[in-house]
């Protein structure tokens, strides 16, 4: 077992080290997920319900493989999703995830996506809804190797803060050694749109229901393309109820 990380490490700069230390000894090695060439795989990661949940995976997509990963990060105290993804030629990786937290939750998503060979595509969409004193973070590095021409990497990160004490951290990062690549990232932190809120209330929704519905729209779009998304939608809805209560 390696030593407990400190916040000096870039990938742990927002981590809850105390929470991490309480599970560090029993922490399983990162899951190794290999997607064979031209195989197509979907995974949905639901929270396991523990107060502290750390999920780590090392994923390799062989040439022409496709993976869609849908995840909900929602542990009560500390939730961390850590991905190290390697993309071979022409593979396609989609990661759509939500941090939904209230109270003192610290939720973070830390990804490294390595475009190792030409023409791979990565799409990361992260939505955070944070209330109370919750902290939601996204640290995402897209690394494009020297000969990985025609790489296409996108990161879209949006956070909604419901209370003054809530915090969103967002750090998309590009490390590009090839010259013919298309990489884009966008990040916004916002509050609910007052026009939308008034429109919903004028139709009869009380303020709490109106907020919940607007937030649902903000999050649920993540799972539009997931097959069998009922459970994750249900879990996200329940999590949103807690945040807006």
């Amino acid at each position: 077992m390696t030593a407990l990380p400190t916040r000096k490490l870039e990938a742990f700069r927002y981590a809850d080290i105390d929470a991490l230390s309480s599970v560090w000894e029993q922490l399983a090695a990162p899951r190794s997920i290999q997607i064979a060439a031209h195989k197509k795989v979907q995974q949905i990661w639901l929270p396991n319900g523990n107060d502290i949940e750390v999920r780590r995976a090392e994923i390799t997509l062989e040439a022409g493989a496709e993976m869609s990963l849908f995840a909900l990060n929602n542990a009560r105290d500390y939730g961390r999703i850590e991905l190290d993804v390697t993309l071979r030629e022409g593979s396609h990786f989609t990661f759509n995830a939500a941090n939904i937290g209230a109270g003192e939750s610290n939720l973070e998503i830390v990804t490294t996506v390595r475009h190792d060979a030409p023409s791979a595509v990565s799409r990361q969409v992260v939505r955070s809804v944070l209330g109370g004193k919750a902290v939601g973070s996204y640290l995402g590095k897209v690394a494009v190797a020297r000969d990985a021409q025609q790489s296409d990497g996108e990161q879209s990160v949006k956070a909604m803060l419901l209370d003054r004490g809530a915090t969103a951290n967002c750090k998309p990062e590009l490390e590009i050694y090839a010259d013919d690549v298309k990489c884009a990232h966008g990040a916004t932190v916002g509050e609910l749109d007052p026009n939308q809120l008034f429109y919903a209330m004028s139709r009869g929704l009380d303020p709490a229901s109106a907020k919940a519905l607007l937030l649902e729209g903000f999050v649920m779009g993540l799972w539009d393309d997931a097959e069998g998304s009922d459970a994750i939608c249900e879990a996200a809805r329940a999590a949103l109820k807690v945040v807006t209560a």
Partner: protein
Amino acid sequence: MNERMLSIKHLHATVAGKPIIDGLTLSVPAGEVHAIMGPNGAGKSTLAYVLGGRPGYEVTEGSVTFDGRDLLALEPHERAAAGLFLGFQYPVEIPGVSSLQFIRESLNTQRRARGEAELSGAEFIKLARAEAAELGMDAEMLKRPVNVGFSGGEKKRAEMVQMGIMRPRFAVLDETDSGLDIDALRTVGREINRIMRAPDKGVLLITHYQRLLDYVQPDKVHVLSTGKIVRSGGPELALELEREGYAEAAA
């Protein structure tokens, strides 16, 4: 039944601290449709928002009663539950939320507040389909996110579908006719009559054009200018305004 279903007295209101409504008095008895016309910037939409209870629109003086109740004391959603419907000049887009879900949750929240039974999923879908059909709107459009990607005219028709489903007692319709093509204008006019013409209902119809009033015959026409009603009359007043313009007619 209430003689003065909606009664506005000496109303003064500010938007972002700026006085816009300036001593406005107006009553609509049950069973009547009143039109409000007036130049751009006169305060028509402001009046609609004040009646709807929009945050930031502050009443500084005067009163508004709805069926004898103090309307201004109610929250926006309580006004909806009391039977008030606001048709927006610019209907709002809500990405990620389907129209069906939006309307159903709104309607059921209203019904709960009134102590009525909620509609089941099946009952609601049937109602929504029927109302969309009346407006000549493809029911598939209701599966899309609220107003997202709708044309200007489609948004206005969607407002009328919502009104048809919710069956309010009183509707304030802010330029529901603008952006509609000729056929849609006729359909919307017919729908306002179908949904809202009843002895116990009332309508305040804000419009710039006589055309809609050909279909929805108003009982009264009022001219709103710089925050107050400067003239009132019968349907013939709208024709006179169209002929002579506001400057002449208001003089």
